[in-house]
């Protein structure tokens, strides 16, 4: 090779290094920012916990919040609301009453975060002083070292630094390393004394180490590194200690003199959960920080290697580093250091050399890194959701979705980038199937793990198993599936594009593919987060007990119930109320179609698209036939009494016949979309994640037209018995102004049905092909006019759906905008009247037996009344209340024709006082462990340990009779208890 060729290779290598380094920088910045956000979000929870324990909050509750809550019943009583409306109004009023609390909490958290950031800033500003003191650093004296300083300044100039750093010497460091640190405009590089020796014994090695440290300065690593460390230590110093103290004694701020240890197992579990969450956070922050630092080391190596001449000294010096390290910060046995070293601040020297040889490695993201990112993002999102949600008030729903949106964009973007990076060495082949499966599972598993281990979950169970382990498993499965679909789509599109694209086009296409994946995936992630938050909407399918006509016909009743359940199933309903599903569906096939249309001489792609659209069209035509058949079938099998529109449509008769008719057709259309998707997924061998959405969209558009056909036929054959006159006009066959709503309905239901079916179908087909391999098909040529026709049809299809989505936006905004606040308010407490002091009503003192305990609630949409008796309540003069269920108390109710029993065992004690006709409880503990068992028709459906949770309640005591009713008006259930003195 000639000298010119050598220079050329060197230049190209430098360009590659520079490109890899540039691509790494934003990725590292994001990870640093996410790590800092995780610590700050944990601080929000910690500060909220501390705020709850402050004396000022106790005063605020006593003077403003509690009186307001007590006034809700009086404010709502005159309104004569239905049960469900009453729950809504009470909820709204409760939020109003809680506003002072939320505002004080926001102020407290804001000031706390500010203090924490100030402390972090101070720690960051002091880090040069601290390092100088800790390492006893001295300035590298010019006397006797003039030649060294000249050399060092020369290297700094070569690194492109505006000014050389301050050169320091670590006299106790016998090692031959260096360290970069310092504040902006006053950077420092410290030389180990062992390194200074190398100036004379190994000049090239000396320069290599210095260049590495200058690489850190060049890459601006110093501020990010030391700021992250400073924020972590400010969190530990300012919040962890108070949090642990409060965990051990919740009253430590209010009554510091009175130490009390709750022996309640629930409290112990809560404490343990909180400590585990803290430990977990510590481990995550430490490991994530080290992972980022490792990537910075690789980055500095690559940059430094680019400044070297051809001597390769940096590789030599790095290769000579002992591994596992001889020096360990922690007292770890030598034989274990190898394992721990991989999690430390520096990568394995072999990996460092490999990164210098192949800088593209730098930009590659491993599954572990993605899992870590998912986990840290979950910590951020979960820890701030409650706090932000409280502040959002009525805008909670939209607030949660918007909060989760950037997290979704981050995770989807990271996943797609990672998939593109692992593809880099094998252009045209795409990421391996293993990577395409493992990377999305890693990011989803990381996110799913972060929820239960967040500080918020430790305090409120939100983000964890609030809705039970089954709901958690369903949530996680859906998340994994979503990321797998994104991965499959990215891989499929990427492979097809890479087959024929050139460098520049490939880069543009990659960016477009990433943007599309984020545009589709991030909103879906945000919706998923909202659906799974708290009570978990995925698990709330109301598939029975709907008030409907035609209940005497069992199959019709079942059909109506299922249709009703599907119609109000929140994940489908809410998704339908956004343009995201329609737009997303179109983007998934339209973007690849446009990208591929310009690059491929091979017409296989366009043939695939045409076939997929044809299958969708066939399914759509079948839907139209079904649309005609359904009215005739209904007329044949259903009596006229069932096929009627009630005079008044209200809560009592939601599922009237036209509604069931429409729902049935929607379900048939969804099934046909699923069948079409299954056919395409089985037939196609490439671009399946692109072709299936195209098929579903095509079927959905034709099915929407079919809906109008079905209604018109119904009208023509006088299917619905109605007081209104039926007519048969051609105009009935044309779409009306609600066509966008119907299209979205059909698309959303169809997509929900098509995804699992297409996955199963693709799996079976792949297995079949593996067992009976077929030879690859030869490239085919497609006639130009057919390609143009196909492009025109697809363009029209996409435009139609996007236009429908655009038209629906105003309705979508209305759907997501909270309703007007009810015109009811709680009378403010009289400021002239001093708050009443806590007292104990002497009438209460004694032992009481419940003679009647009645709870009105709702299970799903079914009202339920539970009744029981026998619980013993004791109130002492010392302010201790006991609730004892003896060997067990059973509450029973008939719900939707089923016998539901709730059997409670164990006892609870609490401190209590009376306050203007209200018994207030605090410091509840489980005195005797017990369980709460739920039975339906005699079979056990669930069992949980008894928890110490008593709500304040209103009471009326007279002689030997006591009556208790709800004290918290916001509760979704109302109860009344009659007791006799024993």
């Amino acid at each position, binding site marked *: 090779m000639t000298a010119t060729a050598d220079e050329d290779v060197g230049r190209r290598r430098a360009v590659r290094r520079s490109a890899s380094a540039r691509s790494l920088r934003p990725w590292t910045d994001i990870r640093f920012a996410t790590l800092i956000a995780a610590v700050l979000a944990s601080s929000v929870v910690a500060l909220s916990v501390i705020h709850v324990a402050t004396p000022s909050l106790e005063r605020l509750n006593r003077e403003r919040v509690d009186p307001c809550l007590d006034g809700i019943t009086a404010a709502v009583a005159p309104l004569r609301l239905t049960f469900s409306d009453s729950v809504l109004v009470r909820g709204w009023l409760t939020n109003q009453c809680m506003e002072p609390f939320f505002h004080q909490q926001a102020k407290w958290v804001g000031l706390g975060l500010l203090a924490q950031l100030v402390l972090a800033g101070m720690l960051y500003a002091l880090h040069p002083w601290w390092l100088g003191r800790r390492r006893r650093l001295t300035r590298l004296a010019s006397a006797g070292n003039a030649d060294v300083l000249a050399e060092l300044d020369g290297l700094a100039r070569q690194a492109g630094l505006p000014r050389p750093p301050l050169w320091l010497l670590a006299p106790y460091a016998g*090692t031959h390393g260096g360290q970069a640190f310092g504040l902006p405009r006053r950077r420092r590089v410290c030389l180990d004394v062992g390194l*200074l020796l190398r100036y004379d014994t190994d000049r090239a090695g000396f320069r290599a180490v210095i260049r590495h440290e200058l690489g850190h300065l060049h890459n601006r690593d110093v501020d990010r590194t030391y700021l992250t460390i400073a924020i972590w230590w400010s969190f530990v110093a300012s919040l962890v200690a108070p949090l642990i103290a409060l965990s051990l004694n919740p009253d430590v701020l209010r009554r510091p003199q009175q130490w009390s240890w709750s022996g309640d197992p629930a409290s112990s579990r809560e404490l343990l959960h909180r400590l585990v969450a803290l430990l977990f956070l510590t481990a995550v922050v430490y490991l994530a920080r080290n992972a980022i630092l490792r990537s910075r080391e690789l980055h500095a190596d690559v940059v430094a290697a680019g400044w070297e001449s051809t001597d390769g000294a940096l590789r030599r010096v790095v290769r000579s580093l002992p591994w596992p390290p*001889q020096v360990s910060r922690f007292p770890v046995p030598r034989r274990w250091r190898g394992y721990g070293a991989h999690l430390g601040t520096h990568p394995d020297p072999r990996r460092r050399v490999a990164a210098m040889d192949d800088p593209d490695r730098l930009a590659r993201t491993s599954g572990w890194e993605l899992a870590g990112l998912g986990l840290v993002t979950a910590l951020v999102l979960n820890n701030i959701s409650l706090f932000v949600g409280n502040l959002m008030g009525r805008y909670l729903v939209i607030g949660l979705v918007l909060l989760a949106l950037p997290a979704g964009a981050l995770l989807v973007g990271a996943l797609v980038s990672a998939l593109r990076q692992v593809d880099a060495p094998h252009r045209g082949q795409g990421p391996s199937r293993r990577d395409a499966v493992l990377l999305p599972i890693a990011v989803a598993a990381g996110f799913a793990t972060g929820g239960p281990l967040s500080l918020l979950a430790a305090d409120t169970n939100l983000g964890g198993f609030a809705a039970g382990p089954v709901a958690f498993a369903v949530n996680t499965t859906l998340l994994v599936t979503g990321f797998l679909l994104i991965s499959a789509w990215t891989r499929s599109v990427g492979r097809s594009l890479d087959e024929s694209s050139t460098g520049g086009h490939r880069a543009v296409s990659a960016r477009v593919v990433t943007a599309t994946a984020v545009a589709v995936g991030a909103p879906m992630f945000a919706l998923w987060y909202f659906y799974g938050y708290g009570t978990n909407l995925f698990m709330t399918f109301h598939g029975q007990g709907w008030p409907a006509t035609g209940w005497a016909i069992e199959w019709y009743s079942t059909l109506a119930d299922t249709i009703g359940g599907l119609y109000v199933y929140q994940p489908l309903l809410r998704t339908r109320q956004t343009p995201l599903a329609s737009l997303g569906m179109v983007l998934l096939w339209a973007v690849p179609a446009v990208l591929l249309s310009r690059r491929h001489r091979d017409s296989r792609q366009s043939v695939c698209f045409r076939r997929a659209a044809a299958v969708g069209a066939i399914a759509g035509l079948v839907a139209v036939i079904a649309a005609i058949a359904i009215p005739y079938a209904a007329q044949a099998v259903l009596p006229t009494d069932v096929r009627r529109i009630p005079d008044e449509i209200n809560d009592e008769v939601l599922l009237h016949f036209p509604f069931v008719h429409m729902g049935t057709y929607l379900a048939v259309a969804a099934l046909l979309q699923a069948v079409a998707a299954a056919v395409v997924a089985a037939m196609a061998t490439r671009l399946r994640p692109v072709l299936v959405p195209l098929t579903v969209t095509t079927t959905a558009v034709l099915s929407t037209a079919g809906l109008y056909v079905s209604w018109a036929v119904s009208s023509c054959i006088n299917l619905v018995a109605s007081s209104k006159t039926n007519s048969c006009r051609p105009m009935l066959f044309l779409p009306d102004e609600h066509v966008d709503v119907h299209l979205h309905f059909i698309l959303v239901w169809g997509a929900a049905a098509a995804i699992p079916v297409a996955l199963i179908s693709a799996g079976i087909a792949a297995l079949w092909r593996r067992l009976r391999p077929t030879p690859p098909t030869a490239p085919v040529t497609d006639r130009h006019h057919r390609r143009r026709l196909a492009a025109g049809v697809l363009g029209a299809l996409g435009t139609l759906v996007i236009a429908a989505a655009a038209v629906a936006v105003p309705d979508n905004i209305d759907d997501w905008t909270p309703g007007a606040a009810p015109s009811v308010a709680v009378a403010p407490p009289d400021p002239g009247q001093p708050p009443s002091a806590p007292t104990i009503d002497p009438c209460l003192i004694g032992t009481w037996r419940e003679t009647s305990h009645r709870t009105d609630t709702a299970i799903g949409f079914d009202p339920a009344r539970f009744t029981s008796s026998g619980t013993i309540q004791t109130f002492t003069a010392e302010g201790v209340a006991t609730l004892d269920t003896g060997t067990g108390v059973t509450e029973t109710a008939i719900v939707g024709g089923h016998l539901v029993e709730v059997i409670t065992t164990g006892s609870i004690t609490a401190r209590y006082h009376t306050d203007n006709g209200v018994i207030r409880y605090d410091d509840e503990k489980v005195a005797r462990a017990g369980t709460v068992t739920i039975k339906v028709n005699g079979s056990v459906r669930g069992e949980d340990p008894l928890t110490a949770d008593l709500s304040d309640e209103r009471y009326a005591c007279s002689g030997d009779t006591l009556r208790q009713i709800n004290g918290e008006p916001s509760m979704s259930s109302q109860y009344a208890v009659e007791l006799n003195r024993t």
Partner: protein
Amino acid sequence: MKARQSTDQHLVAEVAYAMLQRAAAVEPAQVMAERRVFDVLRAAYFADPHRALSGADGGGDQLKFGLPGVEELLTPVFLAASAEVVAYVVDRCSAASRRGVRRLLGLPMEPDGRPAEEPDAVADDPAVPQLTGEQWAQVRSIVAQALVRYAKMSPQRADLIAAAVVGDGITGVPPQ
């Protein structure tokens, strides 16, 4: 490991520097490099001898070059050995004064305390009290043991450097 208060740090440094100079016979490159940092290492040693001998200074690993092993530094070891040698000479030879010790060990008498480059001329002076062969052997043993203990050297290599530092001609024992 703290040098005894009674010993003169200046003298210990002087003796250590002389040792370092003489070690150039067997470790020329190392000694040449360590001359540059002798003053820094001397100050560090007297401030915290244990830390200076361990070679690790902590301070967090972030943005360091890596986790290299500790380099072999002769200066802190010679300083430790020097402290023991001076203590030995003071104890055994009743040469309590600094001047006496300098004479015994054959160091030049420079007004600024810095040893001369060629101290052998002073050693030949008949007026200076002499250590016996046995005592020189003990001094050499102290140096060798320090090299083995603190620098983790093999006994053979330590003996070779100790022989170079003390002079095997004086002890009459060739290095192993």
